[in-house]
């Protein structure tokens, strides 16, 4: 895969510079399509990772996916079983799709999503997970058939993906506020202290608020996370990296 006649580092820096001048998400899609095509990529998507009660379509930031595939993926709710999405939650490093593990026997739906993606020329892929502040989670996933995806080109693609993501985020969330299942900073703090084994009374003392207020924050977090009690809320918040312990 050598000698395609372009310098991947120059391509990356030129791409990042170009992004600065782009003002809308269509512009980002166009710039990504032309630059990523030079590495053989035909499709890509930037999406937040949905929480248990969130629909995939609502967290997609931008996409250049075959229309048929987007419909199937949303209708089948493949985001819940996609091994690429699962690995995104558990690593901060970019990876090839083949590195996303699943058990074809035990997880037939995971095998199905990978197989059906290949029907849409999404045979191989490269994915960059994004883990931001306060539990923000997203990814940029790109795919195609004949990819120039080597140890030499991956650093350039890594950097390009990071900046493409950031530009799209800036354009679509100009306030810069993170998505975090709608949990407030106080709700995250009270859950974090609960995760560290503190009672509501301890937490109140630490944060300088009353025990009653702590309980109210936890109750509100339970509701937002669809959790039956504090224990389940903590488990979900950790699982979805809304809190770090």
């Amino acid at each position, binding site marked *: 895969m050598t000698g395609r006649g372009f310098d991947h*580092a120059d391509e*990356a*820096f030129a791409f*990042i510079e170009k992004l600065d001048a782009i003002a809308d998400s269509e512009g980002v899609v166009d710039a990504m399509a032309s630059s990523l095509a030079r590495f053989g990529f035909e499709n890509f998507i930037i999406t937040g990772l949905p929480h248990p009660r969130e629909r995939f379509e609502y967290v997609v930031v931008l996409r250049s996916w075959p229309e048929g595939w987007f419909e199937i993926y949303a209708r089948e709710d493949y985001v819940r079983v996609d091994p690429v999405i699962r690995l995104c939650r558990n690593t*901060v*490093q*970019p990876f090839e799709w083949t590195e996303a593990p699943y058990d074809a026997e035990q997880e037939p739906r995971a095998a199905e999503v990978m197989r059906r993606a290949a029907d849409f020329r999404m045979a191989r892929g490269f994915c960059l997970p*994004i*883990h*931001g*502040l*306060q*539990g*923000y989670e997203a990814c940029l996933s790109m795919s195609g058939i004949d990819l120039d995806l080597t140890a030499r080109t991956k*650093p*350039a693609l*890594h*950097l390009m993906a*990071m*900046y493409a*993501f*950031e530009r799209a*985020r800036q354009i679509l969330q100009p*306030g*810069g*506020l*993170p998505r975090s299942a709608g949990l*407030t*900073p106080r709700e*995250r*703090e009270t859950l*974090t202290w609960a995760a*560290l084994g503190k009672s509501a009374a301890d937490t109140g003392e630490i944060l300088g608020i009353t025990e009653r207020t702590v309980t109210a924050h936890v109750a509100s977090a339970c509701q937002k996370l669809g959790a039956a009690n504090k224990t389940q809320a903590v488990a979900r918040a950790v699982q979805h990296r809304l*809190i*770090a*312990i």
Partner: protein
Amino acid sequence: MTAIHVVGRSNRHLYGDALEQWFRLRHAVFVGERGWTALARPDGRDIDSYDDEHAIYLLAIDAGRVVGGQRLYPTLRPHMISEVFPHLVARDIPAGPTVFEWTRYFVVKERRMGRTDCRLLAALQAFCLEEGITHVTAVVEMWWLPRWQQAGFRAKPLGLPQPVEGQPTVAALIEISEESRSAALRVGGLRPSSLVRHGTGSPQEADHAAA
């Protein structure tokens, strides 16, 4: 209540205990958690050759306890990018009287929920604005970049990422601006608060004329 304290050569005698905590925490975070074994020291304190009289620390202190911090160092002197990581920079290494290198950033484990990060990031911008510093350079693991960006930092890569201690790492040039400062405060849900400058007189702590 956490406040950010400016500690430099003129007032470090007032911060003996805080600096001791800071050096020990650095060892715990960078050697213990992140596995930068090259920094390991038997006394459990991470102190390197840039912890000299030219270093400025912005320490997050809550009721006498250091909960995070960061270091600034003049780029007119030999600094980490020029001495240790020049290969991470594809073109010229940014240096000048208004460019400082930003290193050893961390927040203690139990405060990693975003607010203390935003407080430290806003304090970095505030300090640089007060001191007339226009840019900072930094070496950072790639997975950290989106956190800065989310907090409103504008960071340009200086080269392609390369593995450092097994992690893809990039050198970046960060623009100092009032917009970035207010974005960091907004994302953290924080009210603007002044930097604490005990015994430093006024700004001009930064050693612009270092040579």
